[in-house]
């Protein structure tokens, strides 16, 4: 059975949802506390859940990016361990430099909480994609992905765009909802697959991400 580390900071609030999604997908979740250090070889994958780490102080994900646990997440990523950041987890991975770009306030200044249709652009070998087109919940105030033109071109050219929004709710550059690092083992997305893992939630398309 695969072991998936679930990283928790003060203010993380999607951790129990990720834990349950990982269990439902047949893997064994294990907590990783923000002050902890760990051995990357003990894990088959790492998930950084959403929430409001450090109360979103300074910039979303900036302070969490400097927490002790992140030095080991970086080491794990460099060794090829699959890492996925969702929502605030995506912001944290961008702030640490494990993923390109940054996430800033939504264009319309509103916190957006809705189901958003997404399109798969490039498969991530580490985290499965359920289908080429899916719909997942989004819930964020600062989810507008920004990157300079040169880097945007690189993302498209090198197959690092993971998912795009079909309706671009937040003003992200190139409709980008999720990206991959150049090695394709680190992935981040603003939508919440863990909130779509049972029929009563409104969809089960998120489960495949954890399988």
């Amino acid at each position, binding site marked *: 059975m695969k072991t998936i580390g679930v990283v928790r900071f003060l203010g993380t609030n999607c951790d129990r949802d990720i834990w349950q999604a990982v269990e439902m997908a047949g893997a064994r979740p294990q907590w990783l506390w923000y002050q902890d250090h760990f051995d990357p070889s003990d894990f088959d994958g790492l998930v950084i859940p959403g929430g409001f780490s450090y109360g979103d102080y*300074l*910039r979303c994900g*900036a*302070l969490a*990016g*400097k927490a002790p646990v992140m030095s080991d997440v970086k080491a794990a990523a460099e060794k090829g361990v699959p890492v996925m950041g969702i929502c605030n987890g995506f912001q944290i991975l961008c*702030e640490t430099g494990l993923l390109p*770009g*940054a996430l*800033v*306030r*939504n*264009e*319309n*200044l509103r916190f957006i909480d809705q189901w958003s249709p997404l399109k798969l652009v490039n498969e991530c070998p580490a985290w499965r994609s359920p289908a080429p087109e899916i719909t997942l919940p989004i819930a964020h105030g600062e989810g*507008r992905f*920004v*990157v*300079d033109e040169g880097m945007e071109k690189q993302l498209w050219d090198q197959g690092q765009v993971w998912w795009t929004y079909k309706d671009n709710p937040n*003003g992200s550059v190139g409709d980008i909802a999720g990206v991959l690092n150049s090695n394709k083992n680190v992935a981040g997305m603003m939508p919440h697959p863990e909130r779509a893992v049972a029929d009563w939630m409104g969809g089960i398309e998120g489960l495949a991400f954890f399988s």
Partner: protein
Amino acid sequence: MKVGVKILPRTEVLDSQGRAVEKTLERSGRLLNSCRVGKYIQLDVDAATKDEAFEKAKDIAEFVLYNPLIESYELEIL
């Protein structure tokens, strides 16, 4: 010694907060060319000289206070 760190969104990045403030001002008849919203951080560091304080503040700012992809910063000795 106290050092101020002024952080503003880069001009290439759409500053949605600044735009909202600008629209409110315009709606109330206070016309202006533009408005950008950033943040101001005050540091107190041990330093014998202004240069030393400046170097320490620069290291702190570049470590975590600002994100060069989306923001620019300026230091001022207070």
